[in-house]
């Protein structure tokens, strides 16, 4: 996957860079040509798209395939059911409280306020997916950037940044999140912010590790020789090659984000009434299930399924992308 893209423009700025072991050689090189890019690539066989290969292997892994299908089904449910259902998520009917499975036209029954559980569940999936995705992406952006910078520069910068990282990651995250949520107003954006504030450390560490490994490779050396600025090297050369790790970490982080949302709902810091999320439905279910089991069983099953799906997909992705990938 190594690709050193060179254009005529880059030859213009030659910069000596230093600070990284083995990079002193940069000064010894000088671009000699040819000027035309296509003639270089034309000599090779057509590149096989890496991601195409990943996709094929993923689909052939039976467990992962089933999970993928299930995920698609759930996403479709989350999007369409609240739109087409005759009940809205907040419609209450006190004469229809606590109904069970398939009673009176309610597929999963009703909760104690007479609200249809099925539509609330699908809406809840929507909310949980959004929260999880947003939380993970925010922590990715910040974590990857942090790790990339730390790994690339090394030395003092890396030292300081890593120490800060350690200190932050030692603070019990659950406690910090609870405290933060007590200070800020509860709601979807606050949950995302809180998760991002404590969840980025894992990503940062991972990316830093990879960048440390990769920056001694020749293509990076070549980029630097050609005078690429640090941000360009990080963005164009290093980070794209960490994508596989980032992707695996992303997939594995989503269950954690959903679980945290569930835990926060349990502590009363979840989404606003009358919205529902998987976590808030499970929490409400715990309080009422001794009278009407389905209020706990249905959301729990869906919650567990979502977690399971993402875990399995993550596992399969990891196996495919790099079998020797171990956890630090």
């Amino acid at each position, binding site marked *: 996957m190594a690709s050193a893209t060179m254009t005529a423009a880059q030859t213009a700025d030659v910069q000596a860079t230093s600070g990284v072991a083995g990079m002193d050689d940069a000064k010894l090189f000088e671009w000699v040509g040819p000027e035309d890019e296509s003639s270089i690539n034309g000599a090779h066989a057509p590149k096989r798209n890496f991601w195409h290969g990943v996709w094929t292997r993923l689909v052939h892994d039976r467990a992962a395939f089933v999970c993928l299908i299930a995920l698609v089904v759930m996403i479709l449910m989350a999007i369409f059911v609240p739109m087409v259902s005759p009940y809205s998520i907040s419609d209450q009917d006190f004469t229809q409280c606590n109904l069970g499975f398939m009673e009176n036209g309610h597929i999963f029954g009703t909760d104690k306020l007479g609200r249809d559980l099925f539509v609330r569940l699908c809406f809840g999936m929507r909310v949980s997916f959004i929260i999880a995705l947003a939380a993970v992406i925010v922590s990715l952006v910040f974590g990857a950037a942090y790790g990339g910078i730390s790994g690339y520069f090394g030395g003092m910068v890396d030292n300081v940044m890593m120490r800060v990282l350690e*200190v932050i990651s030692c603070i019990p995250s659950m406690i910090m999140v609870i405290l933060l949520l007590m200070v800020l107003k509860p709601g979807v954006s606050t949950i995302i912010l809180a998760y991002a504030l404590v969840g980025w450390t894992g990503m940062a560490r991972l990316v830093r590790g990879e960048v440390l490994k990769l920056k001694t490779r020749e293509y990076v050396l070549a980029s630097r020789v050609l005078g690429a600025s640090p941000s360009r090297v990080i963005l164009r050369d290093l980070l794209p090659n960490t994508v596989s790790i980032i992707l695996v970490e992303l997939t594995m982080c989503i269950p954690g984000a959903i679980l945290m949302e569930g835990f926060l709902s349990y502590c009363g810091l979840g989404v606003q009434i009358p919205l529902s999320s998987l976590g808030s439905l499970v929490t409400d279910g715990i309080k009422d299930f001794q009278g009407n089991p389905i209020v706990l069983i249905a959301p729990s099953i869906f919650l567990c399924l979502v977690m399971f799906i993402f875990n399995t997909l993550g596992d399969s992705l990891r196996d495919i992308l790099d079998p020797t990938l171990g*956890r630090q």
Partner: protein
Amino acid sequence: MLKYIAKRFGYSILTLWVLITVTFFLMHLLPGDPFVGDKPLSDSVKAAIYARYGLDQPVYIQYLRYMQNVLHGDLGSSLIYSGQSVTNMISAAFPYSADLALRSLTFAIPTGMLIGIMAALHRGGPWDTTALVITALGVSIPSFVLASILQYYLGVVFSSWTLANWGFRAFPISGWGTPQQAILPCFILGFSNLAEIIRMTRSSLLEVSGQDYIRTAKAKGLSERKIVWRHILRNSLCPIITILGPLIASCLTGSFIIESIFNIPGVGKFMIMGVETSDYMVTAGSTIFYGVLIVGANFIVDMLYMVIDPNIRLYDDKEA
């Protein structure tokens, strides 16, 4: 090597200092005046109460005083439970939490390692399937769901049945003290950790088994048993140690819910109480306490790691 120890110790102290400071200031940002009662207080009454607890000083003075106290091991007095020292209350609560955590780890670690090892050695067999199932369940089911369901079905329904038929309750539903009471809470707390341990053990074992030196050993003709014992196991222990830190942390934080559902008077329940009543001192004290525990645990893990992995000793200083 001493340099390594000193360095890690220094970072631990730094972490703790940051933790204490952040906690203190967050506490003061928390909305909610702990002395607000059901009836509004007149200003003079309020002033008297504030003076009593030293809350009329400017924030930085309170901070300095607090730091000073903490260094002497005094975490302040609870604002709600007038006169109770937070340190005393935590010391009274900690044995319960520690007991719970230790017992669940004693359950989770050996069981997890056993299942993981057997699963790795006999791939595709029943052990492997068990491992898979437990791992899947462990990562999917949140502890509070598991706790609520088990407490009801085992602690109430099943136990009523055993009481009626066999004259005793199989699973007590609350409290702490007898071994029987410990079963459900420890199992639930240990369960999610179990999944993680099994997964780690299994993958670590598999990774080591695929290494060249194992193949060499096999080629040399060493017996299976010797290979497993002397080479595979020793080398796979490393990753287990690395997750010990987070494991202990997860046991401690996971205990919040278990303690409240099973009514165990531990530090988790204590801290939740502090949060609910806006009792700054209690919340800050518990947070710091947890922080000290976790930082301490990580430090010990680092020391262990240093003993096990010579690379750390040799190459740490040269880390780029």
